[in-house]
């Protein structure tokens, strides 16, 4: 998969100054786009969902695309973020911003636990260990009915007003809700962009490209993996927390392995080695599902066919293919 346009470093080698500038200011450009986004979507709740799953996919891709570890257990991180945020509000009556923080930390904490056990393994075994551990997490939350609502899901995450420095926003208003969520996603985009551009980002890449060389150069490979996993967990936890606030419920399905599988598909569909690819993948996946399911009950046929076509004809993913075209 080394043929995929990887990162800024890659891109800036080429001589395309406009493109360079776009890459350098990618987070700003993305922010502007996200502010316009709800206007072009079929409905605002879907736009917000795309943001949330886009962030989930970005967090996943930090591990998969940038470090090269395929996890089949990311639903555990996404779901833990959602449940921790929801439980903070429903059972402890904490304010929404504290709940978001708790959700984010919850995702990171769960990632630390799974990561400590799993980072020793590699390749398909890493995928299987993370899946198995995520199933155990699913079971724990399923059984803790008093806290999580079990199979019925957690309800009552009802935040009506968002107050920021004395300003009050009506969280039931669809557009306001979208922009509140977008603010957090944009913040996360900036942070992620910074991380990848930092020395730590370079270490991540070094480990992916050649583990032995990275180790020989004195980097602690296991620690790098664990830290990346935890960071990935924080982003996914934040996405989960936002999902809980957006829908005012946390369904147990968020922890299901299909949710883990979905994010892999989103990342691959969009282009896993690229910064925005997973986001694009999430958007295309959800839009496709939404539009086609309005049109026919056999929407899965179309979605499946698009996947197969993408794998065969656009192996770099949608965004990866677009980037390549621009380069030419």
């Amino acid at each position: 998969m080394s043929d995929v346009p990887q990162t800024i470093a890659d891109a800036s080698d080429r001589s395309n100054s406009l493109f360079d500038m776009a890459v350098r200011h990618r987070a700003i450009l993305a922010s502007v786009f996200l502010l316009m986004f709800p206007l072009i979507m079929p409905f605002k709740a879907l736009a917000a969902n795309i943001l949330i799953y886009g962030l989930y996919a970005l967090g996943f891709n930090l591990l998969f695309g940038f470090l090269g570890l395929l996890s089949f257990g990311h639903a555990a991180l996404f779901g833990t973020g959602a449940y921790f945020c929801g439980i903070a509000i429903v059972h402890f009556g904490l304010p929404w911003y504290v709940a978001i923080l708790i959700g984010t930390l919850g995702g990171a904490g769960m990632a630390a636990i799974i990561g400590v056990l799993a980072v020793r393994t590699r390749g398909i075994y890493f995928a299987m260990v993370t899946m198995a551990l995520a199933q155990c997490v699913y079971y724990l939350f399923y059984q803790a009915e008093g806290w999580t609502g079990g199979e019925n899901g957690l309800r009552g995450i009802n935040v009506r007003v968002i107050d920021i420095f004395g300003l009050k926003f009506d969280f039931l208003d669809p557009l306001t809700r979208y922009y509140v969520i977008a603010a957090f996603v944009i913040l996360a985009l900036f942070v992620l962009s910074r991380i990848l551009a930092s020395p730590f980002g370079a270490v991540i890449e070094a480990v992916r490209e050649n583990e032995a060389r990275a180790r020989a150069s004195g980097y602690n490979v296991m620690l790098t993996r664990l830290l990346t996993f935890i960071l990935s967990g924080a982003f996914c936890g934040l996405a989960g927390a936002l999902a809980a606030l957006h829908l005012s419920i946390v369904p147990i399905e968020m922890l299901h392995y299909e949710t883990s599988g979905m994010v892999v598909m989103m990342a691959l569909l969009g282009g896993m080695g690229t910064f925005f690819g997973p986001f694009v993948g999430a958007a295309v996946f959800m839009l496709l599902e939404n539009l086609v399911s309005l049109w026919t009950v056999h929407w899965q046929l179309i979605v499946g066919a698009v996947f197969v076509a993408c794998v065969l004809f656009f192996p770099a993913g949608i965004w990866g293919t677009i980037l390549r075209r621009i380069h030419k």
Partner: protein
Amino acid sequence: MAGLSLDLIAVQLFAGLALGAIYVLFAIGLSLIFGMLTVVNFAHGAFFMVGAYVGLFVLMMGGNFWLALVVVPLVVGVIGLIVERFLVRPLYGRGIDYPLLLTFGLSYIMVELIRIAFGTTGYPFDTPELLQGAVDIGIGYFPLYRLFVLGAAAVVLLVLWLFLEKTSYGLIIRAGARDPQIVRVLGVDVSRVWLVVFGVGTGIAGLAGVLAAPLQGVIPEMGSTILAEAFVVTVVGGMGSIGGAVIAGLLVGVVVSMTSLFAPEMAKVSIFALMAIVLLVRPQGFFGRAGLMS
């Protein structure tokens, strides 16, 4: 623990082994393709389901169960050949992610096509007359059909083993799995070998589907549960090891059975807990080659 007797534990153990044999049957096609081609076939469950529906179709056309047992592996195997030739083959050498994504998409397509052809409702699939009823196995009653499936699983394994170990074609397959380049240098058309392996693997998946139909009926979603179980068996046994899959399957069956006795609500998660423990202690599974696909 009301009513816990030695007899019951013996029955439970037997039921676990019988269930384990069914798991082996579910998993063996996946394991074969996994081990020989390093393709993670996410459509394995869909091939299983299609097998059950082809069997149903044979019955609807006036055929019987025994005819279905012959027709199903052939039809599903041919579908597998087509899939390998036109969809999977272009992806060899691109890592494990792409075949995985492709077969995932393919499973959507297969399930939906079946829904279009047969509807969303399930269909009953009666146990063949000859195999109905329960028989006394000395420690209690056990359905005759389950004993039949046990035997069928053994036959499938035996034939597969003979094919892989005792035929010259099997030798090429095993050599191809170890080092395709050398085999190619020796003048063997490796792509044809892979084609055959994929066909055999999916054919067995289809056979497992039609054998499962009298146990649980037929429904388009029936493949998704067994996919997870088959994965666990394959991974615990060690990818690429048929013998490992057999032992892992039986072990998973017994674990499920014993959990069912003492904490039935944990029966489903127990197999994942088992997988997590095995992988953490021995990352390549029981009989897997270390470093494969890492």
